[in-house]
């Protein structure tokens, strides 16, 4: 039987169902795993995604022809059954399950296996062929318990607030920022001071709240006076680093929440005071566990540490290969 999914110049393509998954060029029918910019792009005629990602997608892609599905809901397209299953990556993120004649393929998009109160947890879907990401596909990437990370963030914030300086935490505006907000609320950080969000983060917070995700109270910069600002936790996208927007905070301590912070050199390169290891992606053990849980005998690696993962899985006895994709590793490096 021919492969259910193949790599085409415009993106991953299912010939039997005549649709693409996260294409990077305009196509007729695009199934979108999640709303990060390198996976959801404008210009396609029809879109299919989860109902939970609808608001973010519309906010980012504008007026698109979008059909939504609930997690687990199944539709048929040209004789192929499609359903979307939680990927645990960000709000609305899905793995795409594709079935025809008893053969099942799953395209993971991006995923993580660690708990995250702002999105549905990763669901292992049994399949014959699993198309996986490998952003952090090296054994050096092992995430600490997120609860400990949030306790560290709160400890850092509290120490800064007591010393009278703002705490600026860089984090990707969609997904990471909201996870941090929920996490520090659970870690008891609410009494340290006000939480101030950059406009890019605030817009996404609003979408999360409208979708029914509970987040602590946040404020915009203009709502907080200079005295209170010295106790504030400021969430800003990495692109805000070094911009005039930061000058209003005066003396500050800065930090970055990302899986890349696992390596000291990555933090020191950015000359940051702190690096908090917190990722939207699976770590090495998470990738191994997720791949094993699918029961797939064939694995195709799309982006990140591709040659390493292919060789490793091959040595574990799996039929492993790679798809060349244009999922943007630079964007992943900035936010993951």
């Amino acid at each position, binding site marked *: 039987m021919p492969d259910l999914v193949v790599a085409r110049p415009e993106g991953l393509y299912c010939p039997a169902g005549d649709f693409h998954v996260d294409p990077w060029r305009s196509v007729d029918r695009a199934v979108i795993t999640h709303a990060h910019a390198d996976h959801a792009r404008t210009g396609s005629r029809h879109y299919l995604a989860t109902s939970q990602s609808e608001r973010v997608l519309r906010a980012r892609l504008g007026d698109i022809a979008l059909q939504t599905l609930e997690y687990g809901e199944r539709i048929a397209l040209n004789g192929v059954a499609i359903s979307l299953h939680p990927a645990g990556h960000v709000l609305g993120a899905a793995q795409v399950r594709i079935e025809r004649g008893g053969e099942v393929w799953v395209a993971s998009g991006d995923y993580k296996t660690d708990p995250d109160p702002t999105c549905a947890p990763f669901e292992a879907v049994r399949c014959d062929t699993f198309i996986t990401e490998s952003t952090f596909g*090296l054994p050096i990437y092992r995430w600490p318990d997120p609860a400990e990370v949030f306790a560290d963030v709160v400890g850092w914030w509290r120490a800064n607030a007591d010393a009278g300086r703002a705490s600026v935490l860089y984090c990707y505006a969609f997904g990471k920022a909201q996870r941090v907000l929920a996490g520090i609320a659970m870690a008891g950080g609410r009494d340290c001071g006000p939480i101030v969000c950059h406009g890019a983060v605030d817009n996404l917070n609003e979408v999360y709240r409208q979708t029914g995700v509970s987040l602590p109270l946040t404020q915009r910069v203009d709502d907080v006076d200079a005295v209170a600002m010295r106790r504030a936790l400021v969430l800003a996208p990495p692109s805000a680093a070094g911009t005039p927007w930061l000058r209003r905070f005066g003396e500050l301590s800065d930090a970055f929440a990302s899986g890349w912070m696992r390596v000291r*050199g990555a933090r020191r390169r950015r000359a940051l005071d702190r690096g908090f290891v917190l990722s939207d992606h699976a770590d090495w053990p998470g990738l191994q566990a997720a791949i094993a849980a699918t029961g797939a005998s064939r694995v195709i690696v799309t982006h990140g540490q591709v040659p*390493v993962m292919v060789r490793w899985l091959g040595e574990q006895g799996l039929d492993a290969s790679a798809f060349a994709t244009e999922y943007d590793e630079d964007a992943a490096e900035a936010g993951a």
Partner: protein
Amino acid sequence: MKAFARLYVELDATTSTSGKLDALARYYAIAGEADAAWATYFLAGGRPRQAVPTKLLREYATEFSALPAWLFDECYQAVGDFAETVAHVLPPPRHVSDVGLAEWVGRLMSLRTAEPDIVRARLFAYWDELDWNGRFLMLKLIGGGFRVGVSRLLVTRALAAHAGIDAKEIAQRLIGYTHIGAVPDAAIFRALVAPATGALANPGHPYPFFLAQQLTNPVETLGDPRDWMVEWKWDGIRAQLVARRGDCWLWSRGEELITERFPELAALGRRLPDGTVIDGEIVVWRDGRVQPFADLQTRIGRKKLTPRILADMPAALVAYDLLECDGEDLRARPQHERREHLEALVARNGDAALELSPLIALPTWTQYAALREQSRTRRVEGFMLKRRDARYGVGRTRSDGTWWKWKIDPMTVDAVLVYAQRGHGRRASLYSDYTFAVWAEDADDGGRRLVPFAKAYSGLTDEEIAKVDAIIRKTTIEKFGPVRSVTPSMVFELGFEAIQRSPRHKSGIAVRFPRMLRWRIDKPVDEADTLANLTALLGEPPR
């Protein structure tokens, strides 16, 4: 180890000097003397002899992590630091102990003489009782090289504050503290922080070196040239010759005792009056002039100093300062006064191995600038400018007066980036170390090809490195382990201090201290320099 690990994390988590001093103060307040002795040793730059060869460490760490060797290597490439790589990949410990730093050093030192299978068993047991930070530091203790943004000066200041005595006194006592082979203990640490008595800690010790600053402003900003004493900047090994109690010691600026490497200087030292300390430059001196640094390098490289070597490459000390005369510390006296004492000393003690660094007195900076152009033919690096009233300070401090180095501009060449390798430390996983090539005529077909001639990794900003890194990833031709060859597309202006013929290099030449001066985005690859341009810099007649 937990207290030391906490100190390390605190030092690592701040870029402010006061934050680091606070962290050191907290550590010294609670640490036991034996632990503090070793913490000082490592933070001040001490590197013990490697207790376990890196090859074995790598083998055992790979085994303990249960990873295939290729995957461990991939991890190392991404992290760029061996100790950190191992800390990342080992499985979690079964129980975590809290053994002090001094005891850890003792444990690790004992591995040096142990049989490989004992080393293996002990390392496995040690790794099983250390958390992430503990493992990372334990491997750093074996391999040395902490790089936590703490300078020796900062440690000196923290110790001075802790002991309540002057930082200069601490700097003096720290001399020799970080020797390879040093074994600091509680008693040594007590002596380090004991109240000041005015007595010399050790008769053989030199004074802390006063270091010069690079002159970056126009020389005219220094004011009247008559306020300055000007000498050539010698290209050799900075050293202090210490003559006391009928014996003598020769110390390099790296605080290495090198008396035995230079028997002619040792003989000179024994002829000098007791209580003499000269600051100067060791050079090879022959036919009444200084010889190229390469000669000195050759001489240092020889294991055995044969009579032939001593005759062909005789060493001399070019003296430029006198720190102690007749047992009296002159460092607080003004530069010109110390100079008078030095001249008198040299006059009284004529010796083939002792040269006085001449003063050059010209009326204007313009004339100095013109004379400075002769530096290369004179085999010097430019001028040293010393304020007439400068005291002899400690390290790079400027409070005691100033020494400026006014170096000649480097030789430059426009070269093409042909290979790239990932960096270390904060450049881990970025392609930041490059090999450069120039065009060479191909005798066979009259065409041109690129010949690699130098490696360089410094001189670019972080933003430039990020851009170059992205281009390297997009233009990779082949990967050889950690090295990538790239399609030639980027031209850089390289600067270097000296150039010489070298049969060991493919290009036939070797350059000294190559670094990137700027990225020539404006320049196409075809217009990069040629090997002929480069060899012209040798200053030889064409062959």
